[in-house]
């Protein structure tokens, strides 16, 4: 088994599997032949909805898959946050310690790439203007994501006013409180359009899918790109 694996989260596989491919392409460019972990979930949807034992059942499979690899790269900020901050706490005692050790092998895509020894060898170039959405759960990785985007020559990155405010997704929140969720989303999209950019990049595809759905409905001309897609398209 390769020492490094790429975790393609359930919702990425369902909504935009191409983002998993973009992430794999970037890792290949760094010289990493990675295994793919798919068909698993970190458990976050159930955990946030109030079903931790169901989250544990799902998360157990993900951690089990992690036993075979030294590093598992996660191209989704909120899945990474779940694995790091919440998943180990679903077990008690020795099992919790084991879960915490396994969770420690997971690393966010931006952090993994930015610290990779081969990064300096990559020629990243993409002419254009993009707005940057700082997703709440990607905040620990924000500096890394911004550094990576800063390495892309020709790319003008525009920051949003009030960028630390939530886009209103929140998993089941978007379904259970649709009115508030949509109002928050509209606020965020207004900040996005105000940048003048027509492409939005984020380290979190869940926010992007939500904003994408909103932009379509509101008739806003906007493409949503994951960080992995930006880097992948910036490769020669």
């Amino acid at each position, binding site marked *: 088994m390769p020492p490094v694996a790429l975790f393609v989260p*359930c919702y990425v*596989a*369902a909504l*935009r599997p191409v983002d998993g491919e973009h992430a794999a392409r970037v890792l290949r460019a760094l010289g990493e032949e990675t295994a793919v972990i*798919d*068909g698993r979930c970190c458990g976050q*949807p*159930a*955990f*946030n*909805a*109030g*079903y*931790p*034992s*169901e989250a544990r059942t*799902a998360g157990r*499979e993900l951690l089990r898959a992690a036993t075979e690899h030294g590093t598992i790269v996660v191209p989704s900020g909120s899945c990474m946050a779940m694995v790091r901050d*919440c998943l180990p706490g679903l077990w008690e005692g020795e099992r919790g310690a084991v879960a915490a050790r396994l969770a420690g092998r997971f690393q966010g895509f931006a952090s993994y790439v930015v610290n990779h020894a081969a990064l300096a060898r990559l020629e990243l170039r993409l002419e*254009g*203007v*993009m*707005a940057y959405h700082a997703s*709440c*759960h990607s905040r620990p990785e924000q500096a890394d994501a911004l550094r990576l985007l800063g390495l892309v020559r020709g790319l*003008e990155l*525009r*920051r*949003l*006013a009030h*960028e*630390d*405010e*939530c886009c*209103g997704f*929140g998993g089941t*929140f978007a379904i*259970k*409180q649709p009115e*508030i*969720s*949509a109002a*928050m989303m*509209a*606020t965020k999209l207004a900040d996005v*359009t*105000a*940048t*003048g*950019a*027509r*492409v939005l990049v984020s380290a979190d595809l869940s926010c992007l899918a*939500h904003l*994408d*759905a*909103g932009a*379509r409905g*509101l008739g806003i*001309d906007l*493409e949503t790109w994951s960080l992995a897609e930006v880097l992948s398209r910036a490769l020669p």
Partner: protein
Amino acid sequence: MTSFRERAVREMEAEHPAATVTPIMRKLVADSAAMLARGPADARQRAAAARAHAIANLEALHAETRRTLDRRGIGYHRAADAAEAVATVQRLLGNARRVAKSKTMVGEEVGLTHALRAAGIDVLETDIGEYIVDLEGRGPSHITAPALHLRRDRIREILARSGADLPDDDPVRLSRHVRDAVGAFFRDCDAAITGANTVIASSGRIVVVENEGNVALGVSHPKLHIVITGLEKVVANEAAALAVLEVLASSATGQPLTAFTHFLAEPARGQERHIVFVDNGRSRVLADPAFRELLRCIRCGACMNACPVYRTAGGLSYGTPYMGPIGAVLAPLLWPQGSFGDLPGASTLCGRCREVCPVGIPLDRMLASLRHREAEQAGSWAEKTAWQAWAAAFSHPGAARAATALGRFGLAHFAGLLERRRPPGDPRRAPSLEPERDPTRLAGGPPIDTTTPPTEPLALPPPSGRAATVALFRERAAEAGVELPAKVKREDGDLRLKANAAIASTGSVLLTGEAAARRPLLAARRVVVEVREKSVVPYPSDLEPFLGKGDALILTGASRTADIEKQIVRGIHGAERLAVTM
């Protein structure tokens, strides 16, 4: 009872709270962060430690508090629930008929004003914001800024309905109108009821913070002063109280300290003082390891200031005296039989509440735990079954892959069906599954509004050396509107006092003993305080050796209010002018 969602939709349609609240809160959150960065780097850790210690030793601290209060002649009372709290206050009030009440969240929690009025007592809300929302009749929408949801024109209408003659809606005029009504009430009232921000076990002093001076009036004018507060509000000693104060006003309102920080000791001759500690479910929270640390809360409101759901739905949507993230956790715990089980769902779990909480309460984690509790107790069979099926699928990668593919197929083919089930007005469509990429979009357009990347305010190094400390004091005092004349010319209505110490980082002066007497202070037209340079300390937490044993009062600028659209109006009760001579 309606659901949170129903109330929020009604509020959003009728009032559009975000338009009023969001701009105010954005500024407030930035100001709070900047103000905290001016304090000691470890202020939040020390405040959290002080509160954690109090929670871990609550009964021991209460035993001590009872003794120290007794020594000062302050009555110690405990009420198990709301009814007992109201009954205790009523008994203590005796024959009092006119009662001036200042802000107390526990008072809101137990429905004190309403209950006392029902018993025929004339209760006046003396805080400007509370006075306004009391007339409006829908209750406070924020724990520190009760009238936050009301714009000035609405406030003018509300005051006009009660007979006020107001030519315009200038916040200065509106605030002074309420001040005058409150001031007139204080000239003839029997008792005052206030809250407490913290009660010091080792010394039996009660700490109350306020900006307007209505608490200063309440603790000094009527013969009877009753404090009503939560059981959890005790702290071990002065150092712990100062640690709380160091983060409280900055987190709440972006001020260094409030205009008045009272350390109340024994009542004046001929006066009576009592404190009622209200349990009302707190012991139950204390016994629950999952939520015990919630009792650290110092009611600053920082979590609601930062909460995007609170800003969008408005405080009244929560249907409880406690709103925002703290309300969404506290209300279902305090009233487990109530209908607040859906409040933990009023969050995207974005985590801003946890980040800004000055005492380190993991509010978002608690919200998730409460959703679990609610799902166990009241989750529908259909929802439980759905999540079990989901978990079953994700415990077999093959099944999960199939389920994911099925989900994708469903989204692609039944998106139209899903869209027809959307609530009306929801603009969202199904997200694009095969994103098209049009290179021309990368060209972008000219920016209308982008920002320079926000940076966290840098923590300032502590002032080093006497001269730097004094210079910082002068700078911060001037910022707070304090006059710093080289020589003071005597004026009519001057009150001259000597400060026992001063605080550089906040520009505050400390008055102790006789100098802290509120009556002359409130009657003066200008307060002139003499500060000795060698008594200036860097931070509030350095004040402990100067606090003395009795009554003390920290003044930070002149009395003021920001209860109307958060606009500052100076000179509410008491002198409009504060001058310092060195």
